């Protein structure tokens, strides 16, 4: 009698396997690597200016008592073009945004900002992704909310789409804006 149900066991296991595969296809896993630095202070850094028109960026610029956005971007990054209007809107709303340009040339950043608008107060150039690695960022674009004492409060991975703007404003408010 026992052998009877045992006969179906391989088929049942196979069905389970198929179910797992189908589930994986329909609900793919989140492939983003979140920074473990959220809640921790920014590491010490000082970057040269990425363009002639704006100063460079250092850790001291984030300990002014007012929360700011830190946008990690690059002129060669296509989704960075998509988020440009949202950054412009945030800047127009009075949010202070600093940028870090990853592996970029001065003339390329200048041309990119001339084309897509420049919402940044300061832009540092990170030529070997050193600061990117130090803050646990794994790609471009990423946007960090930094509170007035220089502590990373929130990380947004990927481009900022219009529906993300209220969330970022909320996070800035939580950080003391």
């Amino acid at each position: 009698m026992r052998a009877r149900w045992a006969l179906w066991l391989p088929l049942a296991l196979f069905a389970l396997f198929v179910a797992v595969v189908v589930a994986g296809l329909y609900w793919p896993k989140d492939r983003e690597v979140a920074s473990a630095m959220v809640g921790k202070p920014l590491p010490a850094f000082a970057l040269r200016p990425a363009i002639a028109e704006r100063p460079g960026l250092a850790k001291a610029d984030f300990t002014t008592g007012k929360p700011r956005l830190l946008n990690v971007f690059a002129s060669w990054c296509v989704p960075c073009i998509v988020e440009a209007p949202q950054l412009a809107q945030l800047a127009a709303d009075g949010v202070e945004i600093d940028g870090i340009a990853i592996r970029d040339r001065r003339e390329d950043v200048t041309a990119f900002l001339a084309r897509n608008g420049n919402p940044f107060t300061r832009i540092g150039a990170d030529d070997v992704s050193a600061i990117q690695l130090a803050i646990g960022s794994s790609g471009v674009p990423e946007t960090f909310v930094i509170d007035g004492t220089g502590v990373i409060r929130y990380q947004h991975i990927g481009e900022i789409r219009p529906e993300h703007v209220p969330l970022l404003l909320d996070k800035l408010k939580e950080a003391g804006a």
Partner: protein
Amino acid sequence: MRALLILLLALFGVLVTGPLAAQDTLPPAPYAYRQLDNPAQEAKAQALMETLRCLKCQSQSIADSDAPMAGDMRSQVRQRIAAGEDPEAIRAWLVERYGDYVSYAPRVTALTWPLFAAPLLLLALAALLLRRRFVGGTKS
């Protein structure tokens, strides 16, 4: 013959324009593609790089990947090893920033201990079952 020539030209075109379509135009970081002069240090760096995950290309180690970010990570690993830093300290620095995800060398933690315990439990279970079968067999 002419078709072959066109094919060759097309192939040459792909080879020449391929790298130009890369993500960025900056040259790679100093030690992304250059080994350390000290062979012992290079061996240490290589061993570490093979167990660090590329964040852009998630099934490759940074030693295997041509992603610019992996090159920057290799350069940083080599420079820190050259400066005398311990490989495990560099791994810990990266884990502090990206979580266990960045490391291919598994650690025993509150979350991962069942992975290490399960094979031992299965072995013990198998030993028990075999013992019952063989020891029980001689008795009957």
